């Protein structure tokens, strides 16, 4: 690690709404996560970056209740909790937007937003659901012309919006976004990054899994790097350079990007970031 300072995972003085300590998860002989720490506080966007196989998806699955961790503690709002199922995660106030969005394309926007949480089971209150749908979408300044069309006719960015709006339905404290911009074009990516910004303004804690350094730099407050299932540093997104991040992700400071950076901008110091070595 080049970036020197060692720090606790929580970069801010604010109390973390969700903190993971020493999370461990193995699949057979493979240790997917080993002693991973992560904190997110209200109104903060924490990006989790890492190479393929770094354990990002496993972390998402633990947070969303799909997998149970083998060891470690999860503290939510100062209480130690266990997340046994997706429903339990939802009840706690941790909402997850999966990479594939999990929308039903044959249903319209309202039906997708309220899927599984419809109002009045035996005589659906479609008026109240439509009103609430518009509230949610406007809260996100979403650009969806009408909520009565099937999701199939929406663009990728609009679908992402619907998926994020759905996660807001239970008024969660923490929202986990798994690769929210991976499949999107330039304009749609901007749209989704605006959404993330808005989630922070509204005081949600956001954990954003991403591959895209530009996106991470654009919206995250802090960056947590995972490498081979372990924490490999926490950085302040405002000051860290892309080379430092890539160095932490790949685990090698000597790589093409770093060499090129030193060639083209020899004055750039590489130790602006704040990193922690576990």
């Amino acid at each position: 690690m080049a970036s020197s300072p060692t720090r606790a995972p929580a970069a801010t003085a604010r109390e973390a709404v969700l903190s993971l300590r020493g999370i461990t998860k193995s699949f057979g002989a493979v240790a997917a996560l080993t002693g991973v720490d992560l904190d997110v506080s209200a109104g903060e966007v924490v990006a989790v970056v890492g190479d393929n196989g770094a354990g990002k998806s496993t972390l998402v699955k633990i947070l969303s209740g799909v997998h149970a961790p083998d060891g470690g503690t999860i503290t939510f709002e100062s209480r130690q909790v266990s997340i046994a199922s997706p429903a339990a995660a939802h009840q706690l106030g941790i909402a997850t937007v999966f990479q594939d969005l999990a929308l039903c394309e044959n249903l319209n926007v309202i039906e997708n937003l309220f899927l599984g949480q419809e109002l009045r089971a035996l005589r659906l209150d479609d008026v109240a659901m439509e009103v609430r749908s518009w509230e949610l979408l406007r809260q996100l300044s979403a650009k969806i012309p009408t909520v009565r069309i099937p999701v199939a006719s929406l663009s990728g960015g609009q679908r992402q919006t619907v998926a994020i709006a759905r996660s807001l339905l239970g008024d969660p404290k923490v929202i986990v976004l798994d690769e929210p911009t991976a499949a999107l074009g330039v304009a749609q990516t901007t749209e989704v990054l605006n959404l993330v910004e808005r989630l922070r303004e509204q005081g949600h804690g956001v954990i954003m899994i991403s591959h895209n350094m530009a996106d991470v730099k654009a919206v995250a407050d802090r960056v947590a790097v995972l490498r081979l299932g372990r924490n490999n540093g926490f950085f302040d997104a405002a000051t860290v350079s892309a080379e430092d991040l890539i160095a932490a992700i790949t685990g090698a400071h000597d790589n093409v990007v770093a060499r090129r950076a030193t060639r083209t901008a020899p004055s750039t110091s590489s130790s602006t970031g704040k990193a922690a070595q576990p």
Partner: protein
Amino acid sequence: MTDVHTPPAAPPTGTPASDLQDERLRRPSGPGGFLSLLLDRVRGGDLGLLPVVAGLFVIAVVLQVLNPIFLSSTNLVNLLIECVPVGVIALGIVCVLLVGEIDLSVGSVSGLASSAVAILFVNRGLPVLVAIVAAVAVGGIVGWVYAQMFNRFGVPSFVITLAGLLAFLGLQLKVLGAAGSVNLPFDSALVRFAQLAFLPAWLTYVLVAAAACALFASGYAHARKRRSAGLSSRSVSLLLARSAALLAGLGFAAWYLNRARGVGWMFVLFVALVLMLHYALSRTKWGKSVYAVGGNAEAARRAGINVRLVYTSVFMLCSSLAAIGGVLAAARLAAANQSSGAGDVNLNAIAAAVIGGTSLFGGRGTAFAALLGILVIQSISSGLTLLNLDSSYRFIVTGVVLLLAVTLDSVARRSRKSSGRA
């Protein structure tokens, strides 16, 4: 457009309702605009019930030209009653198709229920209601077993129900025993209900008027609720026109049928079942979860829907409706025999659901598909019988119509994909 709260450049009629504020939204006005929206939907592959209604019209015209008895009151009265047993079975098929599965054994299950009701009622001397409930319960159990096989072992529904088709045909033969046929007494309530019970003329008109009033009242209450919530709503004149059209259409049909024997109670039962299923599919949480499972089962599971329970309920509903269809068939025939539920019952029920516009790919279709689809099939059957053509022609024509319907479904699906409505 970044702020949706400010309405776009003031339209002539003040602020639009909160669901119509997007400037990209076309706001149709008057009947012309309504028609152009409808045309757009059809072009986009969102056909709904349009093809089956058009098909029904064409079939009626062609058969009437070939034989003027076809549209006579007497023939239509019979036609409607003949629809019921297979139509009820088709209702169940609509449900399984909606979750993207299939039940090939509905014919055998209906035959088993026919036999069960006849044996229990005639040979064992049980009260008729008990016999009916037992027969329908047998259907429910069959569906439960299918669902367990499907949920626990992941056997494709196609194979499970194909096995069921054979096994329950065997069970039906076993239950009927060596005689192979049981006659139901003509003076029993069940047979009289299916063969002789018709609504008095005044009652048909009362029901028609009640239907029109109910349509208007529910539409008006809904529109008022939407208005008070700041959403767009249908105008009162449109609601009135809709109810008046229903009143005129059903009123004429009732008058025309009343020139002969009128409307059978059995057909009323069928329509009631269709309306109940329509309500359950469109206005309850269960209905939404059925469509969700048919559209994307994994998404439904992650949304917290108990997908296995949805499959179980749908398989049980389908088999139970098949059993009800079987009971009605036995009552109509006043007998249960080895050919009850055999032959074309299975395929007619599936064909009716598909012809009515239920997608074989899951997630699309309504309860009305069963009603309209079975009307098409029964019209072909009745018309060709009137022309003294034997069943060979009936099979061929029904086959062609089924192929047409499935082709239409596939083409519509493709154009939905290309216009982003898949």
